[in-house]
């Protein structure tokens, strides 16, 4: 039981974590990316289509990431160059992505809601099946896919990237005081655009993982609010990599536990709401914490 929850918890954590990595870098540069959801969905759609067409999970994953990068970059232009409100633009992009994908599905594939394509190549497992015999984490290791490993590596590298590289310093300075960036001759808008493209890249990976980790079927409700859970995760982790990762893992494990509990016979819809309720609780707690600090 614990083994299974652990294994599926990690699988469920990965897309949230990938999206949160992009989102936290984006927010450190001063942009609250509410459109992670839409970019994840686009990534998932592209991943399925390309995977079916090429039979390569790698090509599909890269295509998903690049498509979302492009979407993210265009999205950031509306904010930095055209002065759109970032929340409104983000909500708009989420609606647009869902609508455009729905349209493409019925127009190109004649299907509504769910897209099943033949020969979808799923993400490979990194370790041979024999690791399953390892106690407790055996199942987890056996199910491990390359994107989960990438997410963990990214989280481990991120603090260093943010503190020791020029790019990291510029990102932090942009979010903290954009006029200062301008006064020293740097271009904060460019940094915001780059960080939003970065967030798009990781949201695309998150989408690819959702689509290709196990089922290989695209569904309009595939992301199920995970983009927003990622948003909650980096708010809860106050944009710090490790804390954000911990929040993601918490949400992932809850999600896994929730699926287990449904099989036990508890009302599924009620239990299904649990992760979202936890997000709400987490945000209230973190807000109360910061209020207490300031009073």
């Amino acid at each position: 039981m614990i083994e299974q929850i652990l294994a599926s918890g990690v699988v469920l954590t990965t897309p949230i974590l990938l999206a949160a990595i992009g989102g936290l870098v984006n927010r450190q540069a001063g942009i609250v990316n509410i459109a992670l959801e839409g970019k994840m969905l686009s990534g998932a759609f592209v991943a399925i289509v390309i995977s079916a067409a090429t039979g390569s999970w790698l090509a599909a994953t890269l295509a998903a990431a690049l498509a979302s990068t492009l979407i993210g970059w265009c999205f950031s232009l509306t904010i930095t160059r055209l002065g759109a409100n970032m929340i409104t633009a983000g909500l708009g992009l989420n609606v647009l992505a869902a609508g455009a994908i729905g349209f493409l599905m019925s127009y190109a594939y004649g299907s509504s809601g769910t897209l099943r394509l033949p020969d979808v190549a799923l993400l490979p497992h990194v370790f041979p099946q024999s690791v399953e015999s390892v106690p407790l984490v055996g199942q987890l290791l056996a199910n491990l896919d390359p994107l989960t490993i990438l997410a963990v590596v990214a989280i481990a590298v991120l603090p260093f990237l943010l503190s020791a590289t020029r790019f990291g310093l510029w990102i932090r300075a942009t979010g903290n005081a954009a006029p200062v960036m301008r006064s020293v001759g740097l271009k904060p808008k460019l940094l915001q655009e780059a960080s939003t493209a970065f967030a798009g890249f990781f949201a695309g990976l998150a989408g690819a993982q959702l689509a290709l980790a196990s089922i290989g079927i695209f569904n309009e409700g595939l992301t199920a609010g995970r983009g927003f859970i990622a948003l909650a995760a980096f708010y809860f982790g106050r944009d710090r990599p490790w804390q954000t990762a911990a929040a993601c893992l918490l949400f992932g494990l809850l999600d896994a536990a929730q699926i287990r509990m449904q099989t036990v016979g508890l009302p599924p819809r009620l239990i299904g709401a649990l992760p979202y309720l936890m997000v709400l609780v987490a945000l209230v707690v973190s807000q109360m914490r910061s209020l207490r600090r300031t009073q």
Partner: protein
Amino acid sequence: MTTIALGATDIRKSYGPVLANQGISLSVGPGEIHAVVGENGAGKSTLMRVLQGIERPDSGHVTVMDRDVSFGGPADALAEGIGMVHQEFMLAPDLSLLENLVLGDEPVRWGRGALALIDWKSAEAQGRELAERIGIEVDWHRRAGAAPVHIQQFVEIIRLLRRGTRVLILDEPTAVLAPQQVNELFDLVRRIREDGTAILFISHKIGEVMSLADRVTVIRQGKIAFSAAIAETTGEEIASHIVDGAKPVTDEVKRGTPGKAVLEVTGLSAATVEKSHPLYDISFSVHAGEIVGLAGVAGNGQIELMEALSGLRRSIGRVELAGVDLSGLGADRRRAAGIGYVSPDRRQEGLAIEASIEENTIAGSHRSRPISNGLWLERSAMKRVALERLSRLSVKYGALHDRVGSLSGGNQQRVVFAREIAVSPQLLLVSQPTRGVDLNGIAAIHGILRDFRDAGGAVLLVSEELDELQVLSDRIMVMVRGRIVGTLGADADRREIGRLMVMEGAGA
């Protein structure tokens, strides 16, 4: 041998019908400190924007190191070695001082481009060396927002020097400093001058100009009104040119005759946001017919104390107004009890800047008769009340329905006072009343405060201008790190006030 480090020749710049600069020429040579003075709106800032490449002049040209240059943007001016220290410091508050120092020109340990690794060791060595050269000490790992203001300012100057600045423009650099810190700044500026750096010093304090500058230029209404070597002029002469030959309106110092206590504060404490100081165990009183000044280096809790007293910030301890306990009450109840509040932030808090003059003048009185009849606002009563209030303080305006933001700073502030004084408060809490107000406006606002006091009102006054506090106040309290560290008579030596302002170890 360079003779002109930075020069402007016949600069003209207009914004629509407003002729901001009408043929201004001035220059500063290497190793020279040139002061530029003038009232708000005289055209100083436009000229500085041109010299920094932020604005393109309509005609005229800029000279750097004896060469004519044409700036495409601020980056070009920076590349030519022109650096400006702004009134609002240009440091990212959540980054460390060291990170701020190297931002935009980071020493690299490995790699190239955006992903290059920053060499923090050599960055710190550079910072230490520069700080030593100009004779200061800096804790480079401190968060910039938590460093004292004068250190922030020094770091900004060091940052410019590190990037090869040969012309340093200082925009009202002393506005936020205590007298001792001003001396430190001036020593530092003189040392920078010795290295051959040219310095443009923008100020409106004639005493500072006389003590620091080698040369002074007065700008009035977009033109050069006067220019001379400091050795060949006097403070009075400069002052007379600032205000168009007329004798400047001088404040007559007249003290009040305090009556019974109006405001009594006992043991007031308040937590504050992390970027400033919490208030700790503050007790004092303000009497009728008395102006009490609150001095302190910016960010030591003065503004927070005003907010706590006005009910905008939660606090514990006892606050009494004429014997009535107001502790724990919110801003509306305190207003009703007789506390008026003049915010330091006129544009955000003092006025609804997009609303009309009329609406701003009657705001707060709109909930009761005669303006409200319970259901809607009586337009005619509203107009009558507004006109009466505005004429009482002789506010100059076009039409009642004009945006209040279209008025000059001085007239905006008069609108605030017209509104606050009209409801006859017993106590006025006034913060930074003359910030961004021209000289004649300042005299008028001082007059309003004195009249209010002479009519028996009590005033608590916060100002970063020590001169203003000394001219207006009957007593001066000094605040350091959220505590009141001393109270002095208004005639106290300003060095004594300054000593208290920078008192160390006063905080917890």
